[in-house]
């Protein structure tokens, strides 16, 4: 996104409202995400016409209809490709992709990987409700083991994909997680994603009230969440728990949960470095799972916040450099020289 030179618009969250009736189920986590997005965008100082929301198909993908910006509700799983094409046409836009766990990890998994790998300057928000909402409740690739759904009677027995691990493996330069009901945190993360140069991947835990209610209760219930979440802050030790006395220590290549003061001192606690060039630690964090019914032996607090934020050249920057190079070497192409490149002959 280019910096605009015009005076910064002063926008209020309500300026992003459209006249369309919002049609998610009452209590759906999507409402909160919509509200936080409006707050985040209003703070950016970017005019509305430079913002575009591109989505696939799913409950989550209805999002663009409710944002008074440019919007494109495309087809199942393909939003990253259309967003990429848009960036090629106009590198001056802030382009958001809204996708779901089915849309982004199943049918569109391939595009997700390649958009992240190329570091196209798009902001991908994956609304993870661990279920297919729009098609009325089938298990998804992120559904945890044992998920009961219409297509998994007796419980799902497929190993779920870990969205953050996948994004890191795909060389994503910005990887973060937030939660639908943690409103301030979400606004902050959305702002961070908007400011990141390159592709940003944000997983949002989103409650599907109808088909998967409560899967994230351990992360949202005030009485337990402090023990189950690890709020990441750059440069700060990884502490968590109601009394912030628990932390993460590295034992060789193995992370472990320790109690500060009992098992070790504060100095032994891992310090979070989101800007580390090497994504190995971010990857370790991405595998922290709280729920022991999943494929882990011991519970870990699930990280929220920014796991990784590194600046690398974007696809658009690299392509522009190639174009500039071609023009520098041979001049800007004109019709007159287009046809004459090969051997020609003249008939009188």
């Amino acid at each position, binding site marked *: 996104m280019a910096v605009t030179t015009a005076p910064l618009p002063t926008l209020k969250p309500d300026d992003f409202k459209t006249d369309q009736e919002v049609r998610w189920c009452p209590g759906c986590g999507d409402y909160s995400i919509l509200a936080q997005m409006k707050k985040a965008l209003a703070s950016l100082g970017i005019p509305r*016409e430079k913002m575009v929301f591109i989505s696939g198909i799913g409950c989550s993908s209805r999002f663009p209809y409710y944002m008074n910006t440019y*919007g494109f509700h495309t087809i199942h799983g393909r939003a990253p*490709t259309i967003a990429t094409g*848009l960036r090629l046409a106009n590198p001056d836009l802030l382009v958001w992709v809204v996708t779901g766990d089915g849309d982004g990890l199943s049918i569109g998994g391939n595009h997700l990987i390649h958009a992240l790998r190329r570091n196209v300057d798009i902001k991908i928000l994956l609304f993870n409700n661990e279920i297919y909402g729009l098609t009325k409740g089938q298990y998804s690739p992120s559904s945890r083991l044992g998920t009961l759904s219409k297509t998994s009677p007796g419980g799902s027995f497929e190993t779920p994909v870990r969205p953050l691990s996948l994004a890191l493996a795909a060389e994503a330069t910005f990887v973060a997680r937030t939660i639908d009901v943690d409103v301030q945190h979400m606004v902050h993360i959305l702002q961070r994603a908007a400011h990141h140069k390159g592709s940003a991947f944000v997983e949002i835990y989103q409650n599907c009230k109808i088909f998967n209610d409560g899967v994230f209760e351990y992360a949202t219930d005030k009485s337990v969440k402090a023990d189950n979440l690890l709020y990441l802050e750059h440069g700060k030790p990884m502490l968590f728990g109601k009394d912030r006395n628990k932390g993460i220590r590295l034992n060789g290549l193995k992370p472990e949960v320790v109690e500060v003061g009992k098992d070790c001192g504060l100095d032994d606690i891992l310090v979070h470095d989101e800007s580390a060039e090497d994504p190995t630690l971010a990857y370790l964090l991405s595998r922290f799972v709280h729920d022991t019914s999943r494929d882990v032996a011991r519970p870990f607090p699930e990280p929220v916040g920014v796991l990784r934020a590194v600046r690398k050249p974007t696809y658009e920057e690299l392509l522009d450099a190639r174009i500039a190079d071609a023009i520098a070497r041979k001049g800007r*192409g004109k*019709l007159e020289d287009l046809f004459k490149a090969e051997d020609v*002959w003249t*008939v009188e």
Partner: protein
Amino acid sequence: MIPENGSATLTTPAAEPREDRSSSDRPSRPIQILSEATIRFAGDSGDGMQLAGTQFTNTSALVGNDIATFPDYPAEIRAPAGTLAGVSGFQIHFSSTDIHTPGDELDALVVMNPAALKTNVKDLKPGGILIVNTDNFTPTDLEKARYARNPLEDGSLNNYRVIRVPIAKLTREAVSEFKLSPKEADRCKNFFALGLVYWLYERPLEPTLKWIHEKFAKNPQYVHANSAALKAGYNYGETLEISHVQYQVPRARLAPGTYRKITGNEATVLGLTAAALLSGRTLVYGSYPITPASPILEGLAEMRRYGVKTFQAEDEIAAVGIAIGASYGGAIGVTGTSGPGICLKSEAINLAVMTELPLVVIDVQRGGPSTGLPTKTEQADLLQALFGRNGDSPVAVVAPRSPADCFDMILEAVRIATQFMCPVFFLSDGYLANGAEPWRIPELARLPRLTITFATQPNSEGWNGPANEAAIDGEGGGAGKFLPYKRDARLVRPWAIPGTPGLEHRIGGLEKQDVTGNISYDPLNHEHMTRVRRQKIENIADTIPDLEVWGDPDADLLMVGWGGTYGAITTAVERLRRRGFKIAQTHFRYLNPMPKNTEAVLKRYRTILVPELNTGQLCWLLRAKYLVPAQPVSKVQGKPFLVSELESAVEKVLGLKSN
């Protein structure tokens, strides 16, 4: 090539041979003047036959012949050496008159091994020249080609003028001073063979020598060796008098102008690049490599300084997504592939149908279904282009009729897509893509204008809200709003691109209310929109030329073709008319919508033959649409029509006739 005025001119009969005692210091040798000749280089995939053929083509074009070529190569890059599956051929028809096809029969054939002999000799005319590389006729070579006996010794080639040349041995000798490995030395064989054929047809070596210099500039020993092999081949012909006569095919009388040789894929690349320049918009080409469409992606990748951005996508779905996203952003969005890739793109093409965004879809057709015949030509994707999507899904379809016509028709595809906000299919095929002909470089002033305009202002003035009360989300009337589906007289909606202040709006693949673009499941609105989308495509007919009809006004029979079969049909019609048949011909370059006079033209003839490289797709369409008794002439062998095949198809219907 296509004659300037679009009418098929008759070729003059071949000139009588004449003795030409040249007064130069060259040994005087009879020279026979021919009006045209067809030759083919055939060898193993690793023998460099495509290169030899391309060089012969370039030189022939430069000396002023009309040309038409047919490269034919296997799907395997290197099938086991010496086997029948690995044979690669390149056919060139060059002429002093106007020609339209790569030729039915060969006047001369070069074969580098027994497999090439076996698969190609049947196309050589009786009495034709057969140049054989005798070094590759060992018992093992013969066995690989499944020859029980050596055809060079069993008299089976007695019908031909066989010229035996130990090409491998002579090449090695010619390059011996350049310190090449035996393998490298053998790789110069194709230049020796080329030199030999250059001598036979009295062609200059300079264009190829120049090419060798440029191509191998970094490896001087390759420059020397390949040049030496080429000259050695030429001199071998000269000194050993491999033929008692040399041939000359004089320059063709082409319309004045500057020419270059061009293949269909090259013309497509130039047309797309010209579209970017003519419109002043970036052209974004999304593609995933596939034979025979990859050269378009490769060619456009070299066009960065002209305003072209190529994107090698992760798959064909992504490739079309890139193009749609680019169009949405105001660039010219183009995607290109072959049949299997079209299957993958169908859903996304429908998104462009539904949202009414410009999109050009290039299908370089190949033999199908499934992976089919990757390197062979076919025209069997017509109905897929027209109907291969869910719902009532009208798109425009155009098809070039010759390699050079790819330039004009891809510009047309871009024009229609951007003027009518719709997907346009461009149906090329493997034969057009790889075949070459001379192309008169267009005068810049005569290139079409490609004016693209975007909406910049709200457009709701005078609109009083949705007529249909079933509209769910109440958009009232009044000025100052932007209505993304408010149409002009041609039913085209405005193109409003992100970044435009005040026109923020949402589009998508769900059915929408006309004018406002709001999601609508209203039954009557859906029917209305379905009809509007269809009518909009029909309205394109107002902007395309009528069908041209060539031939006899009182014809008994109309030949109807589309796409790459134009050359073969035209030549067949010329020959049949010379033989006294009363025949007319027409050719579709616009398949949807069809030109407005289509019905009137078809209804004039009692007999209609539709030659196609499929089992009768256009024929089926014409019968269904116009209730005419069209009959198919089908060929699905992965090869273009021979002129003779079309002649006999007509004879079968009209009865034999002699002059």
